[in-house]
């Protein structure tokens, strides 16, 4: 399942000495890690450990208190405006509930980034939208409004929109949350397929164990008490060999 040969050791994302938090409270202290190109990288941890906070910093929604975040060779903490915009065009983000624009149909949602950022004529965009929706098994739902489809479909439509411009890096915020096991497994397969065909780097925030073992090449685990990374490596290795009992507990689903 895990295609280690596919991982080229070129750094796609590098986080250096990052401190994150809200106002006075520090949530993550001194975070250091690297994500390599073409890798499926999972950020995990218990509730409230700062997974979502870390993701928000990676995609530039929040600004770190200290430290640097370099994506694709560009430091997004360096200059708040230009650099970030440049980097974000190479990134796709799937939000937890899809974040589709409710006034637009599914097809219009997926077409929006293409209309804004490419010179393609409308019929081609239609064509590609169809392909994108077919990839996430939403053929036939082009003209539905987001309010007319189910939660799982909204999430898949959100994924189609995140993939619209074939980004180099895809960020997922809890992709399997609220999905049934079959849809969730299909989504995992889709993630693996996209990673293999396009070499897309994927950063996934989740705590769904089955999906972590299926897709992840490498994980980092955050902890609330230490406010930092307590484990890094492949999930199978951490499950069996971690020195930290909490990490073994987490991967073996023990209380």
């Amino acid at each position, binding site marked *: 399942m895990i295609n280690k040969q596919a991982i080229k050791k070129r750094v796609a994302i590098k986080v250096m000495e990052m401190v994150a938090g809200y106002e006075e409270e520090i949530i993550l202290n001194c975070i250091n890690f690297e994500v390599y190109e073409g890798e499926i990288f999972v950020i995990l941890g218990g509730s409230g450990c700062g997974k979502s906070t870390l993701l928000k910093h990676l995609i530039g929604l929040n600004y770190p208190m200290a430290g640097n975040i370099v994506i694709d060779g560009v430091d997004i903490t360096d200059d708040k405006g230009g650099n970030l915009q440049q980097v974000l065009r190479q990134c796709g983000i799937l939000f937890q509930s899809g974040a589709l624009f409710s006034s637009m149909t599914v097809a219009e949602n997926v077409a929006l980034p293409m209309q804004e950022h490419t010179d393609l004529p409308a019929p081609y965009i239609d064509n590609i939208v169809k392909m994108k929706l077919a990839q996430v098994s939403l053929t036939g739902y082009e003209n539905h409004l*987001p309010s007319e489809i189910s939660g799982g479909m909204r999430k898949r439509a959100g994924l189609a929109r995140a993939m619209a411009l074939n980004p180099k890096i895809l960020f997922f915020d809890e992709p399997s949350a609220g999905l049934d096991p079959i849809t969730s497994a299909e989504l995992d397969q889709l993630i693996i397929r996209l990673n293999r065909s396009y070499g897309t780097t994927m950063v996934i925030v989740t705590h769904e164990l089955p999906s972590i073992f299926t897709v992840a090449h490498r994980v980092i685990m955050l902890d609330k008490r230490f406010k930092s990374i307590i484990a890094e490596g492949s999930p199978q290795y951490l499950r069996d060999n971690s020195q930290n009992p909490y990490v073994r507990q987490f991967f073996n689903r023990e209380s």
Partner: protein
Amino acid sequence: MTILSKNLTNLYSFSQESPGKLTIHFHDRLDVSNAALFIKEFKVLLRTHKPDNLVIDLKKLNHLDDYGVSVLVELKKIMGNQRGNFSLTNVSEKIEEILTMHRFSVLGQHSISERKTSPNFFTHLGNVTINLGSEMGFILTFLGDTCFSFLRFLRHPGSLRLNDTIENMKRVGLDALPIVGLISFLLGLIMAFMSSVQLQQFGANIYVASLVGISMTRELGPIMTAIIVAGRSGSSFAAEIGTMKISEEVDALSTMGINPNLFLVLPRVLAACLVVPVLTLFSDLFAIAGGLLVGVTMLDLTISGYTNQTINTLTLFDVFWGVFKSGIFAILISWTGCLKGFQVKGGAAGVGQATTSAVVSSIFLIVLSDSLLVVILRYWNG
């Protein structure tokens, strides 16, 4: 999108082995970065060469994505329309996988965009009628619900959410006082100034006080206050309840056995009904003060002269009539705002529509009920 290569000559070449047969060789990549340029280029190429056999050589192609596939689909479609042949050669395993993933073999055989056809006139008319009917049904049910909530409140006063009601009174009343005061003051000032131009000619300056007093307390005070409240609070009720509706908070209330109407509507309607009349009284006072300013500074009236004239002209009935009307306006505004909130469907756009509709309907209802009240008063007095 960043265009990686504006120069397409490195990315493809073509050869014509025999008349009518054109081979396009792709090099390196055919993807999101150059699809738009290829499309333009190939349209010209096919127009000039007019091949009836197009061969695409993918031997040197390393990178293909769905944007690239769509270029190939388009070429296939153009050749299909001209009844020419289209074929791919030297397809590597990796490229084949991507083509299969995007179902290249079935794409381009039929038109991609199948828009919903707009229904004919009669279907449309039928739909509108059915929608109107169900909307009327909803409004009546909602009205009934509100009345029942009110009756329940009368029997069990404890069932009202007192804190919410007080909070709403603050938001609708106290927070609106500065803007109501300012607008009424300016309105009184304008009225006094405009009428003085006419009345001065007859030396009837003193009647400016009567004019401002009567028109503000009976008509303009209640109406201006109601319009400001509709804009401030009616809209906010609709937006707040609408957002609660789409995020399933209203459903959560019902499942907890709490009547959403009693929980959300009654505190707002009662709060508005209590504070809007008070706001109207303030509006009257500020308007009279505005008139007074013009009277004293421009019309040689004394403060006591102006106030005496106002007090002599106004009857207690005028003031109470204005206050009574504003109570009715308050019920209409707050109830309409809540109703529109409960009618929200869909997402953010639905909330926007509901907010607009709440303000427009409120203002319409204010003017409509005011005209009805004028007619009623006319026959009642006369």
